[in-house]
């Protein structure tokens, strides 16, 4: 900010603080708002990262007054905040909290919202800047966006910015995501649209870029000459909870594979960006996503597996099968597990399979990226010495226990030569336990600052759908493979790697 003499890029003690602005949340009474958004706003305020002039507007159908809303917001923030509770911080924040009640097709309610915003501009000095967070089902988007257009709330001008934050799912296939993008872009300009993929707000994901591009020792082996295969896993131990309605229509591939896993793949496989800026990083990610290939039609049976959990035992408790969950059809063919072999058709990655898998009701909650290296071309040891030696691995643990593991062979102490795998661990939280900001906190701050580095652009979303669509088309009339709750996916997924002479890593 060259216009402020007190800003100095060398002065890194001073936090990046957004300009005065308002945050408008649609669907403020929802789960996400209560568990993530409101606590994130409080945490930001507590860390001194919100501008001095800041206002929070909530919009929802529920019939509430400012006082009731403020009470809800307070208890939600207090319950889920990550930083210590300071009443005075909340009180200051609560002064600038407003609630507007109304349904999304109610013109009056939106007029009231617009006038509230205009009023805050004066009384709270927010200078007309506002970010709109659409924490609502995508089906409501058109209505809300049209209302915003009608009331002129969405127009950015040189003196003020207006931004919109959209949550996944960004459509259900390429066609619908195009439609959605066109709709959002018709109301907001493309630069003002922020698509939240909260995985990208996680420190480890950002650390992946530091790991690859700030060090010398990883990049030379980060290619098909040395890498045998890549496994990207996102496992959840929970079921679908109360989201049956949503999940029945979506399934694991659309819910997770399309966004989180493909974004992780893009960050793992992308070339070095020209500079560490939003535009350049997105450009490189887009290149990778466009280079992703799906299995050939004949191979789909073997290399695109989906599964559905059956009744089983997980963590010492009986777990219902998917079809027995409330709200799920008894003959549902929605998948709760998806595993697929993808290729990245670039010089760097040609011939290296990328195995992606995600599932619910797997033994533990874990997300990781594992690079499995080729075996040494020649081993000077007797074959019996290295029987226990596997492939070298570099594992980036995204969650939990954010960090990195390096797996390599080492001699077993003793009088004979015997080489066995050992693991070397780097635990991010051990070196820096500084309470790293929660993903939503970081992303929310970036929206207010206008920094789009960690947000996928609509071309990326469309490229991702282009990967998923052929898979969905193949799966359309098939039944998912069953797997027991509490095991690592269906047998067919193991067979998929066995066919290539490989094994899934147990995360």
């Amino acid at each position: 900010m060259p216009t402020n003499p007190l800003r100095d890029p060398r002065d890194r003690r001073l936090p990046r603080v957004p300009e005065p602005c308002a945050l408008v949340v649609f669907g403020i009474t929802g789960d996400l708002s209560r568990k993530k958004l409101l606590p994130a706003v409080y945490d930001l305020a507590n860390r001194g990262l919100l501008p001095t002039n800041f206002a929070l507007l909530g919009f929802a159908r529920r019939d509430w007054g400012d006082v009731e809303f403020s009470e809800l917001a307070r208890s939600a923030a207090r319950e889920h905040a990550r930083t210590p509770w300071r009443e005075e911080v909340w009180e200051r924040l609560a002064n600038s909290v407003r609630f507007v009640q109304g349904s999304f097709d109610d013109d009056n309610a939106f007029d009231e919202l617009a006038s509230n915003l205009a009023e805050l501009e004066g009384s709270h000095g927010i200078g007309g800047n506002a970010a709109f967070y659409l924490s609502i089902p995508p089906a409501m988007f058109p209505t809300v966006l049209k209302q915003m257009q009608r009331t002129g709330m969405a127009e950015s001008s040189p003196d003020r910015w207006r931004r919109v934050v959209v949550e996944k799912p960004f459509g259900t296939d390429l066609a619908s995501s195009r439609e959605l993008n066109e709709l959002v872009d018709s109301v907001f300009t493309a630069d003002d649209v922020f698509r939240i993929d909260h995985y990208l707000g996680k420190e480890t994901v950002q650390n992946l870029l530091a790991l690859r591009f700030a060090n010398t020792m990883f990049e030379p082996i980060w290619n098909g000459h040395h890498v045998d295969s890549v496994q990207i896993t996102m496992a959840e131990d929970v079921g679908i909870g109360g989201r049956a309605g949503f999940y029945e229509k979506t399934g694991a591939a659309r819910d997770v594979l399309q966004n989180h896993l493909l974004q992780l793949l893009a960050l793992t496989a992308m070339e070095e960006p020209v500079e560490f800026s939003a535009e350049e990083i997105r450009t490189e990610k887009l290149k990778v996503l466009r280079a992703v290939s799906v299995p050939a039609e004949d191979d789909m049976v073997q290399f695109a597996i989906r599964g559905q959990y059956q009744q089983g035992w997980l963590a010492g408790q009986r777990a219902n099968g998917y079809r027995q969950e409330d709200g799920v059809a008894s003959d549902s063919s929605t998948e709760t597990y998806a595993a697929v072999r993808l290729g990245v058709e670039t010089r760097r990655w040609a011939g290296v399979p990328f195995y992606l898998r995600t599932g619910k009701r797997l033994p533990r909650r874990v997300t990781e990226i594992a690079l499995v290296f080729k075996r040494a071309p020649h081993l000077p040891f007797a074959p019996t010495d290295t029987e226990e030696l596997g492939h070298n691995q570099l594992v980036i643990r995204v969650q939990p226990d954010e960090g990195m593991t390096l797996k390599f062979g080492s001699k077993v102490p003793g009088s004979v030569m015997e080489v066995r795998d050992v693991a070397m661990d780097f635990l991010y939280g051990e070196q820096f336990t500084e309470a790293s900001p929660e993903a939503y906190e970081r992303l929310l701050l970036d929206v207010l600052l206008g920094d789009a580095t960690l947000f996928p652009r609509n071309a990326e979303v469309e490229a991702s759908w282009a990967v998923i669509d052929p898979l969905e088309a193949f799966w359309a009339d098939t039944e998912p493979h069953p797997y027991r709750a509490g095991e690592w996916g269906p047998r067919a997924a193991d067979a998929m790697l066995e066919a290539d002479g490989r094994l899934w890593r147990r995360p």
Partner: protein
Amino acid sequence: MTTLWDTTGSAVVKELAAQRRTGGAVMSGVALTLVVVADEGRVAEAEQAASAAAEVHPCRLLVVVRRQVEAPVPRLDAEVLIGGRLGPGEAVVMRMYGRLGLHAESVVLPLLAADAPVVTWWHETPPELIARDALGVIANRRITDSAMAADPVAALRNRAHDYAPGDTDLAWTRSTPWRATLASTLDSVSGRRGDLVRVHGGQVEGDPESATAQLVAGWLSARCGCTIQVVPTARVPGSAGIDSVELRLDQDEVVRLQDDRKGGAVINQPFRPEAIVALPDRSLGELIGEELRRLDSDEPYSEALEAVTGATGLSARPNCRDHVWYDPMRPQQTSEPTNGNGNGNGSPPSASPAASAATPAPTVPDDSTDADEVAESGEHDSPADDSDEQPVVQSPDAPSAAAGGAPTRKARTR
């Protein structure tokens, strides 16, 4: 936790390794070592703050307490803790008696985490010259606290004379909330105008004796290119020594921040209603935590220090120091640097004329071993050797006696 009485440095290293083996899941690596130098009376306070900081930035914690330098027999007592009251990491609290205190680095060096940065923090009256404390010389970053000196502003001047990049002061750390608020207030002015903001002048109202208030004024002066001073106020200023800050901007606008005594500050700026921001008091642990976040040199601090003290070229100084042997039991030893030899003019570059006016510049022997009989002959084995040092202990009150005692030693320094 193990306490080792009358022990040696090697025994401490062994004990640490032994505890690490039996401790089960311990940290596989640490990013830095924090050396805390504290007075006996402030050890508890320092331990609390350091362990709070270690929660945020895992580090190996080495607490050095120097006691009774005049004690005839040196002794080391050490407490080795892993995952105990000093936080999750490894910690060693060392009490050093006698002349061992002058050679604390001999115990500390083997305990430093391998190839990781070292931060030394003095939780006591800051040393006059950091070069005189080997624990400061081995550190990549040195944290003093001018507020602990009897005259904080003089201490700040002293810091400027002694400055080397990588030095920092908690008086500066305490200014961060004020500085952040000031910067974001000007952000909103420039955001409203959509154009450059110029600061033509202003003042910091508060306690002119406060190092933090002076540094905020110095920082504003350095950033804005005009002189901004600390003026006394009738109100009792808050913990940072600042009651309010007023900046006169171009276009005849004024912004003003006022401490509201409730953990916040009131911002007055043109065309905007009054706003309140949080300006919480931070604990010592949080301050140390902020310091450990960055380990590179802090140019804005050196510029603020220049503006306060009139010193120049601070950031261009070399960022490492040579150890200067100094014996607090013979503070007069350097009053006649040329005494006894023709080659004793080697006053250290860091001891500027002003510093030597206040306290005589010490001579620089080639190394401390050469100058110190204790290190050469091992006092522990021959305590009788100390008999001639005893009278010197009194010397601060009787300079003539010291002057009488010192010259015989002087000849040996070069």
